[in-house]
């Protein structure tokens, strides 16, 4: 009886140990995979933020958070993905930090909308007077989310 109890106790200990190690291993594997994801460049429709090859150093998505969204130029797999319309991103997953231009996605030629969004964060009225087809070359699309406005083209 006591022998059986000892066997059961040892079995239970080993099972718990095995489960514990498995959990740690699974978490580690999940963490590794979660850091490497494939993302279609969501800024592809914007000229300014179009993903492209920077021949000098590396290729990257030219987003306001470009420092945290980039891949080394010798990453052949990433280059292949890029040519197929996909791109591997090395995503920052560390402690919370401040992105240089917050999280506002700019569509303006030189970030005018980012500055205006900072100055007038609540609702307002804006007018985009441009000399082109406004629907084809809009300057301030994101402001429409926070500001009521109209385009004259």
């Amino acid at each position, binding site marked *: 009886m006591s022998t059986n109890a000892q066997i059961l106790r040892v079995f239970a200990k080993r099972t718990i140990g095995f489960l514990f190690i498995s959990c740690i291993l699974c978490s580690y594997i999940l963490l590794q995979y979660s850091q490497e994801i494939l993302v279609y460049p969501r800024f592809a429709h914007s000229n300014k933020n179009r993903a492209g090859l920077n021949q000098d150093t590396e290729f990257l998505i030219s987003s306001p958070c470009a420092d945290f969204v980039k891949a080394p130029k010798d990453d052949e797999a990433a280059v292949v993905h890029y040519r197929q319309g996909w791109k591997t991103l090395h995503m920052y997953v560390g402690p919370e930090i401040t992105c240089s231009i917050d999280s506002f996605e700019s569509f303006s030629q030189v970030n005018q909308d980012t500055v205006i969004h900072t*100055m007038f964060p609540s609702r307002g009225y804006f007018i985009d*007077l441009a000399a*082109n087809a406004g629907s084809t070359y809009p300057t301030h699309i994101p402001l429409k989310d926070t500001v009521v406005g109209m385009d004259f083209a």
Partner: protein
Amino acid sequence: MAAAVISNSKDELIHFSLGNGAFGGIVAPGADNSKVDVRNAGVKQFYTVNTYETFKKFSVPATIQYISLDVEGAEESIIESFPFDAYTVLAFTIERPSKKVLEILELQNFVEVGILGNFGDTMYLNKRTPKFIEVLKKGQIQITKIEKKIVEVTEEDIFPVRNVRKSRAQGVRCPYHKLDHCHKTLLHYTATYETVLKRLGLKKVT
């Protein structure tokens, strides 16, 4: 969205280049498209409309937070006839504003927030804006982040940036903490870096 050719004169028949993508605009002397051949397929004729009547038609409110003016050389024509008596504009961005445009903005109590990029896209803020200094400071901090590519901005960072290729100054040329030196006159976007520093009472930036 409204398709209209706004000008300082009403019902004037003008040529407008539509076939030039983002660089379309009025074909007239002084405009960016002045050399476009009006016989081109992409050039159409339109009658101009008046800013005030257009704003009335679309029920534009009396206070407009922001106007972006990028009309390829016709900026002066629009600003000259802008109904400042009926509408209060808090902020403008104007691409390559002429001296005439600057004179009008000075009269309307605008202060320069800064220049973004290399094409002379200049932002102005109306002194009548509620919490004027606070809003100006926010805008200039953001411009400094963009132009100097830095994350944390201190008061010392909010100064002009030298455009090495063109010897001009861009970024914040009239910092909120130096307003006494520069709020009365608006500088042309081509002003040299040295001219901008001299106006701020500085000989060189450390």
